[in-house]
């Protein structure tokens, strides 16, 4: 791979290089694949981009769960396209990570071994069709909030992958909100389904922004390196501010007794997510952690003979060409 030869140089703790790097990044200059960069910057990016890629790939499951039961052919086509996009987003991101000198296989192995993290939200079950609406509206909404600033990330290949993803992601959020609108204007059973989905997805969506700034471990360096542009709490506040009026429009109740609009600040004041639940899900104790990983491992294992066959066939073809 064309970026790998450069890895060795990172090992040299060249303070002058690091200082020059910090200056370039502070001046909003983009970093590209082959550029010299501090080893810690490379490591941080590999961790973040691969977690993001894993999230997209695991994220196919909760929604994939409803493709075969989508209640109309139009909805089925939309959902299928959306889940397929998630695979695409995973691949854009693995490709961006690979420019840093790590192979996709290595990253996938970490996921399958259970040593890599992915977004905690995908460890919740999708129990009704309304969850397809809630995921698009809330989960993709929260994701977009996180991702738009990443389009300006200092690392060029990541920023470009994110631009592509954000463009596609806005369809995801809109189709979700459209499902919520349809359900909230539908039969009594459909309205109840929509409210139930909001009840279950609201708090996990708020947790998607990560722990409070005071508890967040990697935040400061990531901000300095222009990988991150806004803090967790800033983004969470922004999400609540735009989402609550949308819930009002739907005639659905946000499941937070402490929620109120503060005239003085122009922001919503909201309650505390259950952080012990957040930590438990990250530890692997969420409702679907085991199931999601087992699914991924099964697909990977079941596909092994296919991947080997394709390789073996290509090798035969090449041998024939040479002969």
């Amino acid at each position, binding site marked *: 791979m064309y970026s790998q030869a450069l890895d060795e140089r990172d090992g040299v703790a060249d303070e002058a290089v690091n200082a020059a790097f910090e200056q370039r990044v502070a001046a909003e200059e983009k970093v590209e694949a082959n550029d010299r960069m501090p080893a810690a910057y490379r490591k941080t990016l590999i961790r973040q981009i691969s977690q993001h890629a894993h999230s997209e*790939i695991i994220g*196919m*499951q909760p929604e*994939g769960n409803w*493709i*075969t*039961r*989508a*209640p*109309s*052919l*139009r*909805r*089925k*086509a939309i959902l*299928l*396209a959306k*889940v*397929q996009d998630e*695979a*695409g987003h*995973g*691949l854009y991101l*693995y490709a961006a990570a690979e420019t840093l000198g790590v192979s996709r296989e290595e990253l996938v192995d970490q996921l399958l071994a259970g040593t890599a993290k992915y977004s905690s939200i995908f460890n919740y079950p999708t129990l009704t*069709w309304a969850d397809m609406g809630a995921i698009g509206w809330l989960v993709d909404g929260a994701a977009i909030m996180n991702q738009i600033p990443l389009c300006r990330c200092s690392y060029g290949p990541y920023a470009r992958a994110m631009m592509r993803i954000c463009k596609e992601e806005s369809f995801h959020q809109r189709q979700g909100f459209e*499902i919520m609108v*349809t359900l909230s204007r*539908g*039969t009594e*059973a*459909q309205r109840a389904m929509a409210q139930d989905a909001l009840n279950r997805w609201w708090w996990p969506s708020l947790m998607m922004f990560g722990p409070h700034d005071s508890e967040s471990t990697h935040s400061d360096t990531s901000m300095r390196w222009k990988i991150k542009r806004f803090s967790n709490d800033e983004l969470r506040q922004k999400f609540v501010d735009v989402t609550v009026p949308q819930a009002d429009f739907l005639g659905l109740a946000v499941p937070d007794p402490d929620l109120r609009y503060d005239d003085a600040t122009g922001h919503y004041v909201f309650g505390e997510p259950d952080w012990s639940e957040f930590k438990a899900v990250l530890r692997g104790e969420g409702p679907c952690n085991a199931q999601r990983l087992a*699914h991924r491992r*099964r*697909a990977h294992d*079941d*596909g*092994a*003979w*296919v*991947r*080997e*066959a*394709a390789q*073996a*066939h*290509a090798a*035969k073809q090449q041998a024939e060409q040479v002969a």
Partner: protein
Amino acid sequence: MVSPTSEQLLTYADGALILSHRLSEWMSNAPTMEEDIALGNIALDLLGQARGLLQHLGNEDELAYFREPQEFRNPLLCELPNGDYAHAMIRQLFADAWFAEVWPQLAADGTVDIDVRGVAEKAVKENAYHWRHSSAWVVRLGDGTDESHRRTQDALDAIWPYRGEVASDQWYARVEPVLAQATLTTPGRDAWIQRGSADGWHTEHLGYLLAEMQSLARAHPGATW
């Protein structure tokens, strides 16, 4: 040329619909992530074709969600369960070879409705790509490793009897060279053929497929989604 009857159009529509459903079951289960996307593309193309024809024949959702299994007219081939990737690719090869005849005929048939011809014209191009995909994979798997050869031969033997509703001389002419290139042994044109769905006979698999597909729509009759 005799204009295709509604019954024939329904056969094409149901074939595309049910096969699309089977392919959609692969999402997040494919052997590579690239294949997840490829199968998703094919499933979406087929679903679009099915919808185009069903909209011509009536209300697409009424037809898809509120008919009984015995009213479906898809070739049995399309409803066979996914099995392993070799089964999926052999099934796809057979179906793609069938549609490779269906769509150009419909597209060129001046006696059919303009909207049906429109569906067919678009489908011709889509089908060409599907065929490239399935034939390339059948060759890779047949002429890959010992294990992949065994699995693909097993799949061919298991699915061959279901060719009856889709096979013609042109179909054999399309399929046989690919199977030969894949180093597979074809059971032969005269081999036993399973009875088809024209008079309502299906495999037991379709009932389960539809029970899943129709469950939500049927739980809320009259609702819009």
